[in-house]
């Protein structure tokens, strides 16, 4: 009797041998509740793009208010209804717009949309696996994310509006429904949505890590992984360690809001009346939040690091400069990301000595970041550069990362931060270094791997138009913001017209708003290109960029199980571009050294 069940284990281990027989899936199994990593990646991508347009649209709305504070916006009434009163945007709705823009962009676009798309799509394809370790958990990850999206989206239509306490949802503002309209139903839905989002991220992250560790093909040592995989792998580890802490903070906030506890509340008077809450500490929330919040910005940027490294090496036709230094700096950034969170809290009255410790640790991050930038530039140096759309965005990424990173060194100083904290200088800094830069990484990834996703190429000319409009408008938006920030403009203010000193900058704010609208409009070029190319784009060959990594050894449109036959074996690292003596300027990872004797280096002769 003990042998009745052995067959179950067998078909788990040998599923890949059966993959040819799976083509009788119905529509729902194939496209909706799919367990195929490629379909799930596309689901994340489509949802991410939808969210990006919503988030971008919200930013245009509040830029209208900031650019033309005296104007009347009656033309917005059909869209916004009661949120526009006599042509004026409701100030509390303005706060809700800012909050939702931040939440959507940071979590739903640049975390789920970026990691979700490219980790899912590339991890199995680049390490040589049939699929993720658990397709079911992967599917669950997407659909929980989807439910969380629906909840957040629905909160936009509440009568009291969505959450409005900033994307950082600091209590007591976010904890007390009587404090602001957005802290009523909108905040509750924000918290539920975020709790589900975290569950989704954890399910995804567990899968990414397990797959990278366990399912690499024969010969694929960790030191032969493409840098994309290293980046996704470390991103998933960061998420696994950081998101549960946000979950704890969110749970305590939920208890404070709905169950009358006082974790973050103490001695509060509202309208002259004392609340019963005693003993809580709002600073505690900030510690918990930023313990996630800081790694979160690396969760956003590190996949972009990986994508950019891969795209730059491929399109410079050169090995990535300093492969091991790239891995080392990724690991360095990952470790440091957990010990710098209090630099978001320099002005909370923390001990100045503690402040200088966090300042020191923060400034150390400049070292691995500079290593990466140096290596990208050194890879480009005297490369045989091909300016594909993906390459343009990758180079644009490096530019934005430098411009935004430099101001990070300024903001990391606890003394300078007293002046700059919560001004537009901060807004400019993080939008360049992790907002726009991560978007550029995402665009580079979409243009580069589009042929593998849809079997067709995106249009390069439209890609260039998209790139230049976006690149120029990003700088036109965020460069002037530095000046405004140094002048002392605080973030999250509905209008500055009440302050005489700020009036001289009103033209500059109008200029920023015009640039922002230009930048948002440019994204429709991308949207058109993306949708058009899915159906009508030029058909791609199996390896259109002459790239080395394993995903290009699959058929043009890989089916379930990715490789029709055996999974290829890996013999070399992924960056053998323009190797002296080789027949082509690229040697894919699955080409054994015995076939490339003319180009083998002395130490590689042993492997022939």
């Amino acid at each position: 009797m003990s042998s009745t069940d052995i067959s179950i284990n067998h078909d788990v281990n040998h599923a890949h041998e059966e993959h040819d027989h799976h083509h009788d899936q119905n529509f729902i199994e194939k496209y909706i509740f799919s367990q195929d990593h490629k379909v799930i990646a596309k689901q994340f991508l489509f949802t991410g793009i939808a969210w990006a347009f919503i988030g971008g649209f919200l930013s245009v709305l509040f830029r209208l208010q900031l650019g033309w504070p005296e104007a009347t916006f009656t033309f917005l009434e059909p869209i916004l209804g009661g949120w526009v009163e006599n042509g004026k945007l409701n100030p509390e709705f303005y706060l809700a717009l800012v909050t939702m823009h931040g939440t959507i962009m940071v979590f739903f676009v640049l975390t789920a949309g970026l990691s979700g798309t490219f980790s899912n799509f590339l991890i199995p394809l680049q390490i040589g696996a049939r699929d993720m370790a658990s397709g079911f958990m992967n599917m669950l990850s997407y659909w929980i994310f989807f439910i969380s999206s629906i909840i957040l989206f629905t909160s936009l239509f509440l009568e009291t509006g969505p959450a409005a306490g900033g994307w950082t949802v600091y209590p007591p503002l976010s904890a007390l429904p009587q404090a602001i309209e957005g802290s009523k139903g909108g905040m509750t839905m924000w918290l539920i949505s975020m709790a589900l989002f975290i569950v989704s991220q954890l399910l995804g992250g567990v899968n990414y890590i397990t797959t990278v560790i366990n399912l690499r093909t024969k010969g694929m040592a960790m030191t032969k992984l493409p840098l994309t995989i290293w980046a996704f792998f470390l991103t998933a580890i960061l998420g696994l360690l950081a998101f549960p802490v946000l979950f704890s903070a969110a749970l305590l906030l939920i208890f404070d809001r709905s169950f009358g506890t006082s974790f973050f509340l103490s001695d509060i008077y509202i309208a002259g009346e004392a609340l019963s809450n005693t003993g809580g500490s709002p600073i505690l929330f900030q510690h918990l939040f930023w313990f996630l919040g800081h790694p979160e910005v690396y969760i956003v940027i590190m996949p972009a690091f990986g994508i950019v490294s891969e795209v730059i090496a491929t399109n410079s036709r050169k090995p990535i400069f300093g492969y091991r230094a790239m891995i080392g700096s990724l690991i360095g950034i990952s470790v440091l990301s957990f010990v710098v969170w209090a630099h978001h809290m320099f002005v909370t009255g923390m001990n100045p000595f503690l402040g200088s410790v966090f300042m020191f640790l923060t400034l150390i991050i400049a070292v691995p970041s500079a290593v990466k930038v140096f290596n990208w530039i050194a890879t480009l140096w005297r490369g045989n550069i091909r300016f594909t759309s993906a390459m343009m965005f990758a180079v644009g990424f490096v530019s934005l990362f430098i411009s935004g990173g430099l101001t990070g060194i300024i903001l990391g100083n606890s003394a300078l931060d007293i002046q700059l904290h919560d001004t537009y200088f901060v807004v400019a800094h993080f939008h360049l270094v992790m907002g726009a830069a991560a978007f550029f990484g995402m665009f580079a990834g979409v243009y580069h791997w589009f042929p593998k996703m849809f079997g067709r190429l995106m249009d390069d000319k439209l890609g260039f138009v998209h790139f230049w409009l976006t690149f120029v408008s990003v700088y036109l938006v965020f460069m002037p913001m530095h000046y405004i920030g140094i002048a002392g403009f605080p973030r999250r203010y509905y209008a500055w017209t009440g302050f005489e000193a700020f009036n001289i900058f009103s033209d500059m704010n109008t200029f920023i708003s015009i640039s922002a609208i230009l930048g948002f409009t440019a994204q429709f070029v991308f949207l058109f290109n993306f949708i058009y190319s899915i159906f009508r784009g030029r058909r791609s060959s199996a390896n259109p960029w002459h790239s080395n990594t394993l995903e290009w050894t699959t058929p043009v449109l890989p089916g379930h199980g990715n490789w029709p036959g055996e999974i290829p074996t890996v013999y070399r690292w992924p960056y053998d571009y323009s190797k002296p003596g080789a027949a082509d300027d690229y040697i894919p990872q699955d080409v054994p050294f015995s076939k490339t004797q003319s180009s083998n280096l002395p130490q590689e002769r042993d492997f022939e």
Partner: protein
Amino acid sequence: MANETVKSTDTNSVQPLKFALWLIIISIIMMFAAFTSAYIVRRAEGNWLEFDLPNILLINTIVIVLSSVSMQLAHNAAKHNNLKQLKVMLVVTLVLGAAFLVGQWEGWSELVQNNVYFGGRGSNPSGSFLYVLTGVHGFHLITGLIFLAITFLSSLKYKVHSKNMLRIQLCTTYWHFLGGLWLYLYIFLRINH
């Protein structure tokens, strides 16, 4: 589903699901690390209600340690194809796990009797933290009990034996983790009280 777990040709690696379970355990550890460090930080700030821990927590601790022992015995029984002992030990673990939960509930009643409340007027974060720590642990213990029940049901169908150890191995790992987590919480509360 046959395509639920797709494994590469490389068979030397750890079973992916075991690895995934360890990662899930790490994320739970991070959650409790956040709670307990928040507890320490908050306690250091003062305005902290001191009260006695319910005595029943010690009994609960003994119960959960015993359940870990019976879980291990069930695991060993499965390994040696001693299916009768396997089922008995799984039931014992289930009962002890449920008893632990009931005991925790009793602990909460004792707290309420001593005027230590979760929320509302007169509550203090020191009490609320105790409820949260025990409550979130209790929630995970319920998931553990569900996992145990699933393992028990499959053992009734003769699906747990020496050649089919994956499920009970996962269950044992998770259960030991939950026990260890409680031990940590109990010692933590004893020290910081």
